């Protein structure tokens, strides 16, 4: 067994980077701090590749597949004798896989940002935050216990908050960041409660113990039940709530589109490739518990995933802000992954869905990051987010154009591109377990192809718009990452995930299910052609289509009014009908009582002043009546 304890540096380096850049950034100056941050990431990326290699190919597997390795562990906080929060590193197939994803994409984004953010105010701050995010995300990925995961879960939340609100003088950005944090925070509440219930019944935070088939979580499900579901199921549902929040599943998805207010590299890194898939990762991490101890929760996951993917895809077809389109497509793709997990079983070929989901997570990270970075390059060139302001850019931005196309093909599931393989596995898994969801996913596949190419055509082809200054290709620092990621988007499909990342660590045989693949490819191509027909050259076809389904279009365009709904709940219900009444109650009732006591005293003291009339004889009268009163009291009553 190899000693992986050096893997703790994965966390230490970015943390140091954060402190150096955060505290001394303005002294170092932009260029130096940018280079520092990037070089730090370079080291991390190298580290993670070394780890991945030595984990997958270095460790001897005598037949029982990949074991989870606790590479590093210290007790961070002792809570109860048997409950303590540890900080450590857990290496197993999915965490190692995630290490690759996170470090690679993050590295790419760093390089990209060197060019993209040039001349921005707060350049150092940007890189400090990026390091903070990398630290948090890596910590989340390698978490050996659920509480560490929660800790870093919160940390990625805050770094996403900071990065979305990077342009803190732009009110929309501020609002978006606030929204993102609060929505996810609310979801995390569920996560925390889930953790508490889980730990109450299992007395452990440790993933290995939890996921152990003979462990307390799974073996002892015969415990208390509530409303027909076992407490473990409930806790897992609560935990999943956290995942819903982070992964922008319906109904907590509303923060994701607004999050696009952040700088584009951030959207690429956090809101496409890494953080938003944390929910998927969480479910995968606890997969054995879900599948063995709480199948109902797993069903919920499947349906939520399916619905979200459809919902998002529909909306994506109508949006004109390219980043928003990408955001909704992200949501829809994550829906795919969730669904895949939801329909998966445990062990061997039953775990196809699990594998497929991880596979798709991986490929999606590549092409979605690529799409966002490409979009960044475009925006950088055109200074606008709206596809209506674009068109015919292919001759101005050749590299961007090619790489973007590759990404689109990949996401649309055109064969031999990465997306094709992973999506096909997912569809296959769905086909085996749940025909209905399978049908839904077919539709979504078509929609995906359609809106992606709608985007593609209307940006790079379509009508020739007059630009007040001719767009020019992005600098090298931006194009190199594009190219690298394009390679990833094209080729990663050939990685044999079924050998490496499986539900039980054992490799299993899986082959392309042509019965599933061919129709999906056809549907995909169909979508592409429709898009081509509508958007490749300027025509009024789109408007006519839109007016044809006026109502549906309107609803989809307004994202089915989810934001308004939330606005209503927060502004009206919480603020108007809870907080303000509470404040009023506090001022007037509670405080009023206290003041009333004082007032009553004052008033009495004013009322009884007549006793002190200044008349000797009245004084004498009171005196005598006092005597008589005492006499009555003592001689006749208390005797």
């Amino acid at each position: 067994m190899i000693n992986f304890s050096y893997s703790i540096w994965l966390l230490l380096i970015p943390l140091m980077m954060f402190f150096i850049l955060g505290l001394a950034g303005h002294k170092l100056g932009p260029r130096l701090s940018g280079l520092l941050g990037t070089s730090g990431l370079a080291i991390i990326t190298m580290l993670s590749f070394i780890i991945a290699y030595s984990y997958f190919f270095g460790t001897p597997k005598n037949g029982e597949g990949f074991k989870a390795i606790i590479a590093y562990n210290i007790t961070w906080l002792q809570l109860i004798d048997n409950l303590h929060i540890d900080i450590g590193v857990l290496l197993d197939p999915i965490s190692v896989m995630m290490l690759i994803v996170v470090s690679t994409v993050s590295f790419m984004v760093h390089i990209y940002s060197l060019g993209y953010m040039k001349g921005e105010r707060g350049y150092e701050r940007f890189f400090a935050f990026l390091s903070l995010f990398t630290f948090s995300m890596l910590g989340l990925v390698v978490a050996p216990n659920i509480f560490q995961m929660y800790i870093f879960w919160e940390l990625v939340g805050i770094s996403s908050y900071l990065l979305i609100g990077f342009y803190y003088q732009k009110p929309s950005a501020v609002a978006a960041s606030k929204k993102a944090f609060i929505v996810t925070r609310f979801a995390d509440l569920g996560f925390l409660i889930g953790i508490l219930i889980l730990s109450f019944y299992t007395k452990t935070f440790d993933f290995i113990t939890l996921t152990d088939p003979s462990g307390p979580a799974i073996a002892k499900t015969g415990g208390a039940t509530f409303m027909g579901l076992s407490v473990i199921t409930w806790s897992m549902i609560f935990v999943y709530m956290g995942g819903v929040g982070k992964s922008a599943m319906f109904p907590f998805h509303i923060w994701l589109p607004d999050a696009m207010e952040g700088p584009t590299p951030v959207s690429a890194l956090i809101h496409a490739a890494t953080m938003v898939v944390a929910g998927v990762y969480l479910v995968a991490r606890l997969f054995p518990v879900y599948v063995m101890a709480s199948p109902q929760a797993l069903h919920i996951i499947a349906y939520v995933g399916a619905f979200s993917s459809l919902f998002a895809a529909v909306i994506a077809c109508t949006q004109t802000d390219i980043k928003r389109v990408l955001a909704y497509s992200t949501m829809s793709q994550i829906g795919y992954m969730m669904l895949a997990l939801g329909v998966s079983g445990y062990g061997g070929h039953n775990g196809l869905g699990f594998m497929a989901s991880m596979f798709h997570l991986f490929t999606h990270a590549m092409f979605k990051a690529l799409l966002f970075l490409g979009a960044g390059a475009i925006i950088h060139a055109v200074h606008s987010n709206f596809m209506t302001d674009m068109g015919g850019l292919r001759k101005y931005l050749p590299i961007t154009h090619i790489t973007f196309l590759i990404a689109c093909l990949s996401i649309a599931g055109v064969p031999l591109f990465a997306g094709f393989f992973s999506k096909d596995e997912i569809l296959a898994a769905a086909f085996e377990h749940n025909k209905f969801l399978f049908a839904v996913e077919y539709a979504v596949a078509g929609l995906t192809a359609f809106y992606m190419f709608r985007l593609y055509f209307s940006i790079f082809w379509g009508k020739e718009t007059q630009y007040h200054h001719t767009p020019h290709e992005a600098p090298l620092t931006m194009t190199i990452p594009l190219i690298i990621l394009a390679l990833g988007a094209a080729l990663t499909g050939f990685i044999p995930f079924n050998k490496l990342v499986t539900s039980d660590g054992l490799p299993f045989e899986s082959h392309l299910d042509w019965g599933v693949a061919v129709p999906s490819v056809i549907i995909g191509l169909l979508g592409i052609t429709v898009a081509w027909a509508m958007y490749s050259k300027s025509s009024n076809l789109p408007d006519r289509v839109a007016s044809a389904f006026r109502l549906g279009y309107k609803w989809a365009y307004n994202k089915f009014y989810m934001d308004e709904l939330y606005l209503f709940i927060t502004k009206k219900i919480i603020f108007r009908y809870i907080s303000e009444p509470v404040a009023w109650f506090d001022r007037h009732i509670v405080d009023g009582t206290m003041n009333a006591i004082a007032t009553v005293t004052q008033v009495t003291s004013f009322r009884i002043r007549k006793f002190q009339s200044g008349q000797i004889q009245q004084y004498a009268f009171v005196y005598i009546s006092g005597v008589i009163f005492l006499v009555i009291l003592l001689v006749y009553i208390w005797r």
Partner: protein
Amino acid sequence: MDILSLFIIIPLLTITGIILVKDIRNVKKVAAIGMGIQLILAAVLIFLYVAERKGGNISEMLFIKDIVWFKSLNIHYAVGVDGISVAMIALTSIVVFAGIFASWEVELLTKEFFISLILLATGVFGFFISIDLFTLFLFYELAVIPMYLLIGIWGSGPKEYSAMKLTLMLMGASALLLVGILGIYMHSAPSGNQLTFNILEIKQYVIPITAQRTFFPFTFVGFGVLGALFPFHTWSPDGHSSAPTAVSMLHAGVLMKLGGYGAFRVAIYLMPEAAKELSWIFLILTSISVVYGAFGAIAQKDLKYINAYSSVSHCGLVLFAILMMNKTAMNGAVIQMISHGLMTALFFALIGMIYGRTHTRLINEMGGLMKVIPFLSVCYVIAGLASLGLPGLSGFVAEMTIFVGAFQHPDLFHRVVTIVAITSIVITAVYILRVIAILLLGPVTNPKYENFRDARWYEKTSVIALILPVAAIGMAPFWLSSTISSSMQPIIDKIMAINLF
């Protein structure tokens, strides 16, 4: 001279020094030096304490000094510390130190201001070191009274009203407390034996349950009022909003902790049976104040009001955890006291500094400060994040310890109220982010903000002195929590002892 008494003597010496100072401008220097020495002394105390424990000294209280004072009533001047009091003392000295620097710009009656401030601090230190109920009570009242002048003279807004209200409510609390303490004293020993005020002696004897039933509510509410127990918290918003910066810092940061500390050092520790019986009432009240305070904070417009309500919420959490009466939750309570003490002091310090520049505390009248005073704004954000329980800052450690501990309670009712209390973390996030968004972020609303100066050196000293421990606790909570929990053991043992019968 034993080290603990120094904690009272040094402030008194500082006060004399201030009185003797001729030049008004040197007053604050003297105060700063004195409190600096106090801070160093606290550090020394921590080292000595740890060394003692390492040396295998397992007695509950260390550095005990016991002088007979009123022999016939068996009143002693008795001091001693365990890990909890040491932690509280450290907290106090930090906050006082920061407070001195935060009030560097006091012009009106400087001398009197610092004298009253340090007098207040003296009371707090005395409270934390005394293990004799009489001296405890004495220092408690000593800490409350200077508040009146501090708020009334140097305050702002409806200061007379707020000062009077605060003083009277806290004194009312101490009235209840007096009855409670007398009740404890009268039942502190089996009939015929010498009655005593000494906590360590009383705890060896089980107070008759009937007496406990009578006097636990008095004692607990008496301390609870200072801990902003619903519905007796209304002194807090007015008091804090009217008080000058340093006073708000000390009051929210330290004085409110007297409530929590006393509640378990006296009420729970000496009368556990009654506490067990009656805890459900107070659990409901405290969980109300946790949520209620948070909701109240959302609707406020004045920075100090927001913070006062959030203090209500957080201190409610302290009492809540104490009432859970299990080790982890009570650990959490102590950590929460310290963390809240630091961060709320930080909040008030920053609010004071911002107020000193913008001359308003209404968030709607300000905006975009992040651009003009980045240092203060960033610190404010950090304080906010600590307050909403971000990992890596002290708030998270405290809250998680409390929630996990409370949720491990075997009784379902306790777990349910825990869930209720947990919801507060979201509400907290809402109002904190709301303030940050309106106050610091966004475009600069007022052109004259452009020529603001960022923090002066003394402001930086004050702020950094508070941020460092917040971060330190947040990053490496292990030592603190283990120290506290080892000191919590005797209390837990006494509570556990009663579960048997």
